[in-house]
């Protein structure tokens, strides 16, 4: 009897371990297949020419495979969206966690969650049919489908990530720290700015990085509202073509296992490396500053 129990126990333990390793296996498979389909492009162009090449004319004869303008586009929409999403996300998180009454925060929190649940295609569609004409009229520009519009839409996609992760971090600050500060005569605001936020800074940084990682990888929004021009932008109202948009729109026309197909996979590799770096940094910060405040034994 005890013996079968021990065998079951060991079997289950092993089984769960194998399944838990599936995520790593998947991660490796994703890398392997990206590289398998992406590397062949470097028979046609050098890595340097691919990454720093300014011209992306994959269907011309002869084709140009330089993705610098795509990389610049991805980085610029991400940075511009971060300028909007970081303050809004963090301020909202502080409001929910520290200022709002329980009833109010119980209304706002689900709203932020619902915002994150909106399918990206819906947000892209919204940017296309409502925001783009609006921008075009107000700023009197040739097209409303541009860098600014894409950044604005992306910001609202990364706010929920930034907000809810920051809120978790703020929540984990022990109450005794707040009480200590209040008891010393600090106002609520001073306590928030000088005690609570510094104590949760590592969590907030992680939140910001993951939010930006989400923005750089987001596809549908940039596909639908960024405008799609593969040039290095000179103004925030220029149309751009970030990496995910290029992959999504061109894959259907790229001849199977032709140079263009491989170039798109190679673009995927670059995108993957960007998000991978973001995540490693976020993970490192989260791990390094795991314990905040109160020592416990």
């Amino acid at each position: 009897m005890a013996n079968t129990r021990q065998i079951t126990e060991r079997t289950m333990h092993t089984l769960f371990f194998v399944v838990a390793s599936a995520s790593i296996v998947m991660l490796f498979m994703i890398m392997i297949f990206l590289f398998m389909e992406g590397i062949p492009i470097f028979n046609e162009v050098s890595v340097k020419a691919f990454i720093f090449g300014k011209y992306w004319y994959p269907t011309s004869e002869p084709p140009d495979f330089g993705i610098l303008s795509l990389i610049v586009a991805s980085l610029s929409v991400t940075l511009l969206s971060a300028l909007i999403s970081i303050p809004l996300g963090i301020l909202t998180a502080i409001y929910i966690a520290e200022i709002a009454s329980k009833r109010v925060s119980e209304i706002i929190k689900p709203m932020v969650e619902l915002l994150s649940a909106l399918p990206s295609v819906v947000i892209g569609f919204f940017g296309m049919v409502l925001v783009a004409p609006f921008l075009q009229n107000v700023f009197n520009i040739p097209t409303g489908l541009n860098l600014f519009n894409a950044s604005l839409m992306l910001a609202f996609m990364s706010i929920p990530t930034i907000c809810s992760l920051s809120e978790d971090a703020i929540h984990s600050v022990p109450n005794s720290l707040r009480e200590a500060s209040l008891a010393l005569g600090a106002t609520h605001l001073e306590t928030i700015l000088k005690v609570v936020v510094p104590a949760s800074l590592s969590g907030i940084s992680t939140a910001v990085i993951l939010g930006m990682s989400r923005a750089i990888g987001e596809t549908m929004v940039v596909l639908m509202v960024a405008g799609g021009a593969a040039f290095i932008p000179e103004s925030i109202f220029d149309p751009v073509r970030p990496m995910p948009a290029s992959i999504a729109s061109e894959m259907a026309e790229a001849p199977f296992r032709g140079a263009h197909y491989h170039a798109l996979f190679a673009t995927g590799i670059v995108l993957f490396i960007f998000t991978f770096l973001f995540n490693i940094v976020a993970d490192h910060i989260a791990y390094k500053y795991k314990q905040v405040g109160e020592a416990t034994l």
Partner: protein
Amino acid sequence: MDKSVKIEVKHLNFYYGEFQALQDNSLDFHTNEVSALIGPSGCGKSTFLRCLNRMNDLIPISRVEGNILLDGLDIYDPSVDVVMLRSRIGMVFQKPNPFPKTIFENVAYGLRVNGIKDKGLIENRVEESLKLAAIWDEVKDRMHKSALGLSGGQQQRLCIARALAVEPEILLMDEPCSALDPIATQKIEELIYQLKKSFTIIIVTHNMQQAARVSDITAFFYLGELIETGETNTIFTRPKLKQTEDYITGRFG
């Protein structure tokens, strides 16, 4: 009365990572006796108790040195099946912790996991255990209602019944009354007095009067060391060491 040694603890050291929580404790427990472990918070008495059924195995960074012999066999021997060991040693926790199941299922749980399928046997054993834990009359009409609807004192007696159902030889109690009111506490203490006829009981308590009331043997811990042990009467009236006296008379801790 049978005075045979049930558990023999020899030179027990226990570490949480770098921190040594127990230092060279040696102590015997006898059949049909109630032993009380007392001492200030953080003195290691709960850690000591949890070494006896290897509950500390659950703490990843912990390490044990020394021997604990149950009926002469080392419980930390690699060949020992921890699961079987724990079904021989019942445990009652600080806060009542019934499962979110019915009263009946709570008591039947230990039997089911130990592979008993006979319905009649399970029903009998559940009833016996609830009677033994002096809670049968209060719950017999609501056996299939959630155990979470009981009062704190009732929940704790249910947890005792749950532990008894597995027919353990030893009962470990980790401050079983700390979350209860005085009336519920009194009921548990009466129960302990009844139970010692059939079990070896080891109880950790914060409450000196409780130790004096229920135990035959008292062991005083301080900073991970076993300071003094002996007959409860002796310890409370004529302690050998000043430290023990100071604690018992309330001068520190």
